[in-house]
């Protein structure tokens, strides 16, 4: 029999946060403080808030997908319900203010937890496809009911509130975006740290065990169902916090916060970032929010690009953007990262040329098909030309083909360098 100290499931708990693990958190905190100094416009703050909310939600989602191996198509429900409840609390507080705004996310979290507890009771009995399909069904049910139950959800218009009417918090009424930013940033740190620590607890490790082999975990005496249920509740709690932060930032909640599209988006975000890493959803949320808000200002077909990026990620980097970065850890540790510099430098020009020219071809085709008659002139990459003349299109295709060919030619070189950089052998052997 193993004593607690040698039990592999609890061995990690003696040192919850080693010093070298604290460093990223300190850097993150400093970055969060400094970001608004650089990006001080209201819209930048709004986008950063949106990013922070997506990060919390994506991290909560990854507690299921990455750590627990549970694929959910309806996780927006817990964020949304947490948000709706927080909004009601906010409205009650405007009538009789006795709580300040910064505690609101706790209420959102508790409500998310409550619903995760109730729904998890039957949905976590099985894993795999059954769980996924129940989550889809519940997601659709709650989203549709939100239109029907007007008294709680406000119907299609949703419910709104005013965050400045709660009890002032040390003289702050959170009317300005910058105040909301710091409130969100603090909660982002709290929630992210909470989820990180949770993944280090025996419970978090058990979720991994059940994900990898539910039968073996069951034989060890742990009910796989209870492990899933508890993970589900924890995930619902943090999703609820994200919902409350949404309520604070946007002061409105609608059916959109509950529906299938939102649930699908968070799956996309998490996967894009990489499900196998704690930091994955964070990177995914940052990249996706930027794509969604900034790219859509530049082009009407932004969703097409996001779709292509997503499919390409699944096909070529199934461990997400973080997985791509993580591949470089081994060469780095071996001190051979320099081996990759040369092939990368060679490839960067054709790679960029391929992406830009392919995008140009799509933009030209789209312009030809959808612009008004007589509006033949279009501008991309600071160049204005006639989109209906074949020359730019041919040029774009030629550049794309040539750079793709160059990439294909350079690929063996990269592979060789990669093999070299990831093996223990000394150079030249």
């Amino acid at each position: 029999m193993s004593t607690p100290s040698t039990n592999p499931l609890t061995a990690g708990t003696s040192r919850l946060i080693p010093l070298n693990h604290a460093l990223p958190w300190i850097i993150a905190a400093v970055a969060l403080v400094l970001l608004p100094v650089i990006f001080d416009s209201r819209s930048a703050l709004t986008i950063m808030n949106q990013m922070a909310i997506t990060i919390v939600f994506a991290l909560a989602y990854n507690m299921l997908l990455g750590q627990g191996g549970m694929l959910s198509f309806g996780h927006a429900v817990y964020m949304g319900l947490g948000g709706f409840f927080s909004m009601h609390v906010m409205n009650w507080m405007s009538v009789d203010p006795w709580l300040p705004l910064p505690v609101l996310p706790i209420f959102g979290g508790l409500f998310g937890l409550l619903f995760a507890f109730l729904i998890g009771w039957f949905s976590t009995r099985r894993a795999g496809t059954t769980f996924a399909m129940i989550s889809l069904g519940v997601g659709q049910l709650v989203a549709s009911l939100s239109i029907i139950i007007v008294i709680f959800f406000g119907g299609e218009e949703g419910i709104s509130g005013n965050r400045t009417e709660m009890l002032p918090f040390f003289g702050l009424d959170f009317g300005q975006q910058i105040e909301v930013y710091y409130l969100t940033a603090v909660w982002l740190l709290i929630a992210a740290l909470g989820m990180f620590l949770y993944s280090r607890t025996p419970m978090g490790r058990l979720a991994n065990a059940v994900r990898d082999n539910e039968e073996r975990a069951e034989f060890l005496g742990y009910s796989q169902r209870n492990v899933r249920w508890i993970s589900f509740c924890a995930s619902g709690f943090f999703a609820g916090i994200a919902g409350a932060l949404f309520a604070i930032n946007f002061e409105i909640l609608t059916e959109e916060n509950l529906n299938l599209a939102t649930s699908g988006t968070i799956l996309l975000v998490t996967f894009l970032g990489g499900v196998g890493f704690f930091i994955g959803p964070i990177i995914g949320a940052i990249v996706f929010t930027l794509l969604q808000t900034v790219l859509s200002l530049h082009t009407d077909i932004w969703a097409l690009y996001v779709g292509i990026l997503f499919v390409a990620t699944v096909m070529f980097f199934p461990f997400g953007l973080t997985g791509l970065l993580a591949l470089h850890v081994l060469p780095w540790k071996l001190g051979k990262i320099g081996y990759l510099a040369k092939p990368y430098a060679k490839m960067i020009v054709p790679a960029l040329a391929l992406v830009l020219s392919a995008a140009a071809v799509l933009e030209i085709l789209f312009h030809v098909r959808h612009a008004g008659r007589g509006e033949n002139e279009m501008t991309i990459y600071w160049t204005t030309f006639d989109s209906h003349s074949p020359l730019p299109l041919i040029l774009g295709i030629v550049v794309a083909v040539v750079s793709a060919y160059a990439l294909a030619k350079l690929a063996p070189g990269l592979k060789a360098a990669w093999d070299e950089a990831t093996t223990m052998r000394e150079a030249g052997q």
Partner: protein
Amino acid sequence: MSLFIVNILDGLVTGLLLFMLCSGLTLIFSMMGVLNFAHASFYMLGAYFAYQISLFAGFWVGLIVAPIIVGVMGALIERYGLRRVHQYGHVPELIFTFGLALLIEEFVQFFWGRQQVPYNPPAALDFTAFAIAGNTFPAYKVFMIFMAIGLFLVLLYILTRTRIGMTIQAALSYPETVQNLGHNVPMVFMGVFGVGTAMAGLAGVIAGPVMGTFPGMAFTLGAIVFVCIVVGGLGSLWGALVASLLIGWIQTFAASYNLRMEDLLVWLGFEKPMLMWESAWQDLWTLTLPQVGPILPYLLMVIVLVVRPQGLFGKRET
């Protein structure tokens, strides 16, 4: 009573249409273990291709050619996309098809725009087949019913009576053994995926003129198709048929009969609030069956999954 018969027929049309999608999806699932989220997108592609072809060559050419194009596309996507992702496991596979669904919708908008395209039934079928108590039944819907039944019979015949069907059934249960016997299982997979998507394409070709051909047509149907195969039991052709018809009828009857929660509550002995707009239960009191009709399939799915996770006709759990 006549309205009841009309509703039975309408539900049959909806259900059989669902079945044309479900049959392909459930074959793909039971063979490859992948829930193809993009299945309804192939249905949409079928409708759009058929529309494009019908502009030049008429409806009937589109009926034949469009499903073939969709099937070839499906096979290519299996060969060069799905097979690659397959090695990473089922979740990335599912996510791949999910991304594919988004991408197909974007591509459709890219080429055909965002509006509904005027894709209409052929003139030869544009007449009233019969009428029951003033309710007309278009010939095109009769055609839909026969197409779907024909497809089902062909599928059943191929799966149970032909050598290829035997191989498919065997590959379903014991892929490795079948491979060792010298069959090219990856080829079978590609074929099944191609045929499954072609059937979805065919469903799109014949449903497009009735249900409307627009970029959102896949999204509205996609989730319902999942409900059908999950309720029927993943991998069961009969289950898919029964569940499709069941859901077709549920939706039709729920939309037709204006049952009110108010009547039920009064019958149960509750007292109707005098000032409805002040009651906390106003939404419950004013609820009607058509309001909740479209969500009934999801409710059914959740209940079935909780009570019987393998579905009504499924033999194994997933």
